[in-house]
Structure formats: structure tokens, C-alpha cells
């Protein structure tokens, strides 16, 4: 059979050509096209395998890190294949070009994109398999396909039925038909809450995370690194560490010294004995104050790059009735996933097998290739469950380290980072400083908004790791050619990094004169993607400043926003939902003597629309958050319970950012070490949280990240309502 033709037909039938989702779907029945092979089975495509003994295997190509993608994506298959989701066996897919994320061109789980980018493709592959099963059954019964009913995992005709397994042999030789996907009114599983597939294993302690995935016989490794990230080993002395119990080997790797022992505790104890002299990087000259000064100078001395330039802000400011200016700031932040970075490696002369809790298995493969000196075809990456990602595991430094250790020692090893290693060696959420300027006309309406920020760009760091996978296809549209072979400096000097200005440059506020500029300033602390990325601070900047403008115009902060968004139905809907459900203007009394105050914020990110109303009180100069009311417009939900959990989790993540998060630097060294000085929200600080999902049958949009950006501004706005103090830097503290 001509596979090329059938693939093209299939893509056409599925409506995938010309939609921007240009990726290959090898959908013939020919097993040679599938990355997985097993005798007798029908590999309908890269995702689905049906066996003669009636098993249905789904090769999950995204990483489950708590966001629910295992359940969500399996539900898409289950819906169109007419089986129960928990009857589908979920296997990890491994690395293959078929599994590339069409938004990024690499196989990453990130950008709140898994549901949105699989919504059509996965339903299509399942519907295609279903129709082929129908045709196979029709053949067996010698009836028309329309006469066959596919229901509950079987093909039915009159009183007869076949299991899917019984049809595998015939189905796999059929040509690929065009299919029609179910319409929302036909959904039986999509949109309904169900038990998450991973709930039982995560409740019984049988879920295997990276840290639990070392193959038998692996020794444990702990690394001592330079206190300033980027430093290298000048010289080292084992100081008797070799003689400590359990120690097998001590080896130097490019960024530190690794102790290998039977137990990780033994490795860690022995590592305390080492003395190491370091070659420190330039960043060791920087501390908090000098970093802030650097940002301010950058803003003063550079015009930066234009991300948006609507109307003419300069002349608008000249003509304005009232002009307001403010400086806003956020610090660097660590991800602090509950599972610290770890990676297991078994390496020999012609093969390198890796077990890694990674959000980017193909970047991990590139890192392993680089560190081992082997070819890509000699690398196997096993992706595990992840104990929290939030963007941290898009960087593969821990994989590279582990492969170096295996190579230097010649031993099978599992590298585990301590919490201190983890907090001090992150790819941090960038610190940022922004200048905002706005003007009001005689009617108190916003005439102009000017935003200019300074921050390090993330792209140079990502580029360094990811470009090895597939240069340059993963880059955002239009930049591909410009980047060419120029390397990491490109994003620093030539191009705007959209992630630095997202949430400002694409703000949905209708303001006639609206300019956004960005100055790249990087003192040298490495940075990465942190849940909601640029939105995590631009949401705070924009939504706090809009509140300042509302107050300057003496208008109600909610009405003021409504007016600026009046042509955007979805923004209006989420805003009015929180105002209504959260009783805007009528804060509850509570049972404490301190009065309560409200703050509101709205933001658009990852194609979703989110509004949030926070209710707080002030006790002894500290902020207590009592209640959060949130509304989200995210299109069709696959599993509303997971959507609510993601929103609620994002709100709690946002609360930690708003009230606690701060990485401080002294002489280039991150000062925070563990949860006593890098605090995360605990149960005693969690407010009542209410999440309202706007019903919709539009295509699904992101839910993992969009709750984060609205939290800090809503609380800052409530603090202003309570105290008259405008807090313009995070974390929000009243004593500063």
C-alpha cells in the first residue's frame, strides 16, 4: 500500500492541512511507520496499538507532571474509540519525531499546550482506528459498514459482536478512511468529571517518579558544585572521603565533583569531606543591589526593542490631563518542584540508557549525546512520571551531569540532587524591572500606556540546549531565518524575546496609544521557563498599574476594566463572573474584627481568559488572604475536575509568588537553600478558593499556567484598597 498517499489523504480528511498543525501523522496500518514494533499487533499509528488479545495501548507522548495530561489525552482517545479510558493501557512513548509538539518543533511538554495541540490529532487517530474496525467487522459479516455499530469496545451487528482484538488482523490491512469527528453534543466522556487514571497509583505509593526509576544495581551519586552557578573545578582534595563507608568512586565532572556510593546518604555524607577550589564565573561580582542598579541603568541608557507601538504615546502624554508613572519590580524565583532533580544512567561503549523526569526527552537525548560522545541513535531516553515540572525540567542540565558521572566513573549511577542543590542551581524565573507610564484624558479615560522593562531573556539559555535537537524549526514563526547559525547571542542583541514581554505586548486592553519596549539585561544568573513565564510578572505589572489608573480617575476598578475591554466578550464574561460570584463591592464580614478588602485582576495567557477577585484583611501589618474567586474561559473542558484543580493549584502557586517568593544573591551565590528560607505556601495559609469555568464548546485552551499571573495583582490591589499603599514589588510585604 502506498503510505505516502494514505497519509496525505488522511491529513486532508482530518482537516489538518493548512491549519498550521503541520506535522506528520503516520497513520497507515503499516507497522513499519510506527516507532513501536511488536509481533501480531496492529499499530494503527504512532499512538495506538491494538492487539489480537484485545488490549488497547496508548503511547503517551507528553509527560505527566500533575497537570492531568495522561487522563486528558487518554480520554480523547477513549471518546472516539468508544472504550472506557481506564481500559486503555498507557505506555510512555519514548522519543520520536512523530511526537514533536507542533507549537515548538521539539518533543516538549510545556506552554500549557498538550490538550490544545492534541485536541484534533488524537481524536482523529482514534476515530480513524474506529472506522477501520467498523470496516473490518463489516467485511467479516459481509454487510455494509453503516450496518455495524461500534459501542463499548466492540463491533456489533444484530445479535453478533466482535471484540476489537478479533478485528485487528483484518483492520491492519485496510486503507485509511476519512473520518468525521464527534460534535460536542455527542460527547460521552469529554467534559465529564472522572477519576484521574493516575490517582490510584499516586495514592498507593506505586507511582514511579524519576527518583524511583533507577535500574537495579545503580549506585547513587551526589555532586558538590561551585557556590556560584557556572564555576568550574580548579583543584580538589578528597580529604579522606574515599574511606567513608559505602563510597565506590569520586570523580570530577565539568561543573563539580561527584561522590558515588551504595546509598545516597553515604554519598552525601562523604561529599561533606571534600575541599574544592573553584574558578568562579563573572557573576560572582554581583549582589542584589548591584543587580538592581544594572537593571535601572539598562532602562536609562537603552531604548530597547519595540514589542508594540500603537498610536503615538509621546504626543498623547504631552496632551494629557493627568500622567502617572511608576516603577515595578519582581525578583528571581526558583521552581522548587517537590521531586528534586535526578537522573539515572547506564552507559557502555555503544549505548547510553537514561531514566529522567524530563519535560523534554529529545533535548535530554541531545544532552546525553553531548556528554557521552555517542551518537543520537545510541541513546535511549526513558521518561518517567514527574514530581512537579513548572518549566524546570525543560532544561536538561541534570541529565548532562548524570551522563558525565557515568562516563567518568564507568559505573551505572543515579544522580540525586539535594534540596539545597535544587534551589541553588535552578534556571530561575527572571528578575525584572519595569517603568510604566499612563495618561488620562478629561473624562478620566486612559489615553496612553507606555511599558518598558529590563530583564534577561530566556531564549539564549533554551537555545543553547534545544538547538541541538532541531535547529531551527522550533523557533517562533518568522525568526527561523534570522537566527540561522548566529547562536545564543542572537536573542541578547538582535531579537526581541517575546517571552520577556508577553502579557504586556499582547494585552487586550483597548488603549489607543500603547507602546511596549524591552531592554535585555542579563547579569549572568541563568534563567528559564517558570509557570506562566513572562506573564508571571507582566500580569502583575499591567494589572497593578491599570488599578493605579483606575484610582487616579476615581472610577471603580472593575467598571474601569470593563470599559477598556468592552469589545472582548470572553474577557468581559470572566470579569463579570468574578464580580458577581465574588460580590465585588460588598466584601464579606468574616468572623474576625479586621475588615476585609477586595482587589480584582484579569489576564489573558495561553489563549485562556482568567479573572480573579481576592478578599483580604490586614492583621498586625501582615496580609491575610481569605477568599479567592476565579473565573476561566478555556474552551471545551476534557475533565472539568482537572481544570479546576489546575486553576486552584495555579492560584496557590501564584499566592506563593505574591506573598513569599524571592531568590537573593550575594557575591553571585543564591542565598536561599531549603524550605525554611525559600518558603512555599502551606495549608494554614490557603484561603477559600472558588473556581468558575465558563461553559464553552470552543477548542480547548491552556489551564496549567493562566491562573498564576492574576494572583499577585489582585492581592496588591486589595492591599491598596485596605491601606492606601501601592506595593510595586514582589513579594508583597507591608513593612518594607
Amino acid at each position, binding site marked *: 500500500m502506498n503510505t505516502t498517499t494514505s497519509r496525505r489523504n488522511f491529513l486532508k480528511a482530518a482537516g489538518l492541512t493548512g491549519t498550521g498543525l503541520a506535522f506528520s501523522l503516520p497513520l497507515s496500518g503499516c507497522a513499519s511507520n510506527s516507532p513501536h514494533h511488536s509481533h501480531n499487533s496492529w499499530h494503527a499509528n504512532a499512538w495506538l496499538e491494538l492487539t489480537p488479545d484485545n488490549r488497547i495501548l496508548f503511547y503517551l507522548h507528553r509527560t505527566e507532571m500533575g497537570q492531568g495530561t495522561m487522563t486528558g489525552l487518554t480520554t480523547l482517545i477513549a471518546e472516539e474509540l468508544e472504550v472506557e479510558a481506564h481500559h486503555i493501557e498507557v505506555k510512555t512513548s519514548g522519543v520520536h519525531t512523530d511526537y514533536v509538539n507542533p507549537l515548538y518543533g521539539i518533543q516538549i511538554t510545556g506552554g500549557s499546550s498538550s490538550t490544545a495541540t492534541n485536541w484534533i490529532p488524537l481524536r482523529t487517530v482514534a476515530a480513524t482506528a474506529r472506522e477501520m474496525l467498523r470496516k473490518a467487522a463489516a467485511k467479516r459479516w459481509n454487510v455494509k459498514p453503516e450496518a455495524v455499530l461500534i459501542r463499548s469496545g466492540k463491533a456489533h451487528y444484530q445479535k453478533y459482536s466482535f471484540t476489537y482484538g478479533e478485528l485487528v488482523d483484518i483492520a491492519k490491512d485496510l486503507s485509511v478512511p476519512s473520518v468525521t469527528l464527534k460534535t460536542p453534543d455527542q460527547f460521552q466522556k469529554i467534559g465529564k468529571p472522572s477519576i484521574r487514571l493516575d490517582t490510584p497509583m499516586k495514592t498507593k505509593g506505586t507511582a514511579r*517518579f524519576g527518583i524511583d526509576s533507577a535500574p537495579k544495581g545503580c549506585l547513587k551519586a551526589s555532586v558538590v558544585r561551585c557556590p556560584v552557578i557556572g564555576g568550574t573545578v580548579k583543584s580538589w582534595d578528597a580529604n579522606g572521603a574515599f574511606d567513608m563507608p559505602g563510597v565506590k568512586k569520586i570523580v570530577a565532572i565539568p561543573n563539580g565533583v561527584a561522590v558515588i556510593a551504595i546509598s545516597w546518604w553515604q554519598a552525601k555524607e562523604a561529599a561533606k569531606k571534600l575541599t574544592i577550589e573553584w574558578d568562579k564565573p563573572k557573576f560572582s561580582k554581583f549582589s542584589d543591589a548591584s543587580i538592581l542598579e544594572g537593571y535601572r541603568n539598562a532602562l536609562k541608557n537603552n531604548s530597547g526593542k519595540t514589542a508594540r507601538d500603537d498610536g503615538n504615546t509621546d504626543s498623547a502624554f504631552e496632551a494629557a490631563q493627568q500622567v502617572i508613572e511608576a516603577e515595578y519590580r519582581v525578583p528571581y524565583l526558583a521552581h522548587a518542584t517537590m521531586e528534586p532533580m535526578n537522573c539515572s544512567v547506564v552507559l557502555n561503549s555503544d549505548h547510553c540508557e537514561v531514566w529522567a523526569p524530563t519535560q523534554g526527552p529529545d533535548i535530554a537525548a541531545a544532552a546525553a549525546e553531548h556528554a557521552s560522545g555517542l551518537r543520537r541513535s545510541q541513546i535511549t531516553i526513558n521518561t518517567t512520571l514527574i514530581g512537579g515540572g513548572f518549566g524546570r525540567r525543560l532544561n536538561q542540565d541534570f541529565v548532562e551531569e548524570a551522563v558525565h558521572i557515568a562516563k567518568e566513573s564507568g559505573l551505572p549511577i543515579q544522580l540525586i540532587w539535594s534540596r539545597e542543590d535544587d534551589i541553588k542551581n535552578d534556571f530561575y524565573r527572571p528578575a525584572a524591572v519595569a517603568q510604566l507610564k499612563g495618561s488620562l484624558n478629561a473624562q478620566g479615560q486612559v489615553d496612553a500606556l507606555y511599558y518598558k522593562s529590563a530583564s534577561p531573556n530566556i531564549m539564549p539559555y533554551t537555545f543553547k540546549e534545544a538547538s541541538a535537537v532541531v535547529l531551527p524549526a522550533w523557533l517562533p514563526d518568522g525568526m527561523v531565518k534570522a537566527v540561522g547559525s548566529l547562536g545564543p547571542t542572537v536573542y541578547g542583541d538582535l531579537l526581541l524575546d517575546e517571552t520577556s514581554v508577553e502579557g504586556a505586548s499582547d494585552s487586550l486592553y483597548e488603549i489607543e496609544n500603547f507602546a511596549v519596549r524591552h531592554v535585555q539585561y542579563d547579569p549572568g544568573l541563568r534563567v528559564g521557563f517558570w509557570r506562566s513565564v513572562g506573564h508571571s510578572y507582566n500580569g502583575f505589572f499591567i494589572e497593578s498599574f491599570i488599578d493605579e489608573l483606575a484610582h487616579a480617575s476615581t472610577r471603580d476598578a472593575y467598571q474601569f476594566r470593563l470599559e477598556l475591554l468592552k469589545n472582548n466578550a470572553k474577557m468581559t464574561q470572566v470579569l463579570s463572573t468574578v464580580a458577581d460570584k465574588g460580590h465585588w463591592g460588598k466584601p464579606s464580614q468574616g468572623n474576625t474584627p479586621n475588615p476585609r478588602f477586595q482587589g480584582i485582576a484579569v489576564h489573558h495567557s495561553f489563549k485562556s481568559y482568567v479573572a480573579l477577585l481576592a478578599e483580604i484583611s490586614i492583621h498586625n501589618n501582615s496580609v491575610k488572604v481569605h477568599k479567592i474567586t476565579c473565573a476561566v474561559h478555556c474552551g471545551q473542558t476534557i475533565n472539568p475536575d482537572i481544570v479546576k484543580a489546575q486553576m486552584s493549584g495555579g492560584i*496557590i502557586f501564584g499566592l506563593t509568588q505574591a506573598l513569599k517568593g524571592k531568590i537573593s544573591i550575594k557575591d553571585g551565590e543564591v542565598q536561599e537553600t531549603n524550605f525554611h528560607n525559600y518558603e512555599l505556601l502551606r*495549608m494554614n495559609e490557603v484561603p477559600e478558593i472558588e473556581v468558575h469555568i465558563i461553559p464553552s464548546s470552543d477548542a480547548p485552551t491552556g489551564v496549567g499556567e493562566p491562573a498564576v499571573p492574576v494572583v499577585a495583582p489582585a492581592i496588591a490591589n486589595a492591599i491598596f484598597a485596605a491601606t492606601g499603599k501601592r506595593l510595586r514589588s514582589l513579594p508583597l510585604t507591608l513593612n518594607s
Partner: protein
Amino acid sequence: MITFSLNGNDLSVDADPAMPLLWVIRDIVQLQGTKFGCGQGLCGACTVHLDGIAIRSCITPVSEAKGKQVTTIEGLQGNTETDEHPVQQAWIKNNVPQCGYCQPGQIMSASALLAKNTSPTDDDITQAMSGNICRCGTYPKIRQAIHDAAKHLASPASSNVSTVPLTANFQSDLSS
């Protein structure tokens, strides 16, 4: 040799008495349901029961377990696949876990609480659970599940917590 009981089985381990119980359980006995989060008693990921009391195994030397009963997440449920502890049943019914990494510790803290207080107030729950961090932010569901489990413990018959979960037969290579 240090002898203690682990999930009902007597066990002798040849370990440094100062070695934390967590690493004895994970690296020597190779039971991996108990997690490492901070190593400093700050996050609760490593919570196990020592004679029924919730303790942080990352800062408890194995010598302290001598002659005592240690229970981990693996030992919480009964002998059959579907014989989950009422706390686990409530966890499943409420879909509590996100990434799931903190959950064994959360469940061990919750089950120790319910063993001594079968009808905890919100304040009791906050008190008992604030040593367990969840970066994914599953706290509201944890609170609800503890209330549900308490209700079930108070009157097992009238509560539907014990329904066998639909996904009991679900298979994946991500589980052991």
C-alpha cells in the same frame, strides 16, 4: 544489625545507626513509596508512622526505630489490591493528587491524625497537615478528603467512600 518491624514484617538491617530511616527504607529495603523532598524535616514528603505516630524519616536515625513498628505508604492498605485504607479511598474519590510526589507523605500524616482524632475540625486538620508541603497546591482537596475519610470512619456503612475505584484495573508502565 538494627531490628525493627516494617509494614508488619520483622527486619534486620546492617546500617550505620545514624543513617536516616528514609534512606534505609529507600536504598536498603528498596521500598520507594516514601519520598525525599528536603532532608531537613521541612516538607513532610518522607512521613512514615513510627509506632503509629507520623514522623519525618529524613531526620530520624534508623537507630530510633529499633524494636518499633514502622509503617510506610505501602503498608497502609490491607492485603488485597482493592483493600485501601479509608484515607486512600477518600483520596481516590476526591482525585486529590496532581504530580503526586508529596501524596504518600500527606496520606501518612492524614492517617496518623485520623487514628487519634476521628472527627477533626478544620483547625485540627490545618494543625496536623501544615508540615506537609504540596507545591502543586492540592490542599483544598486534601482537606476535603480528610473530612470524607472521617465521615466514613464514623459510619462506614452510610458512606460511599469504599466504592472500588473505576480505575483499579488501569495499567501503565509508570506504575510498579
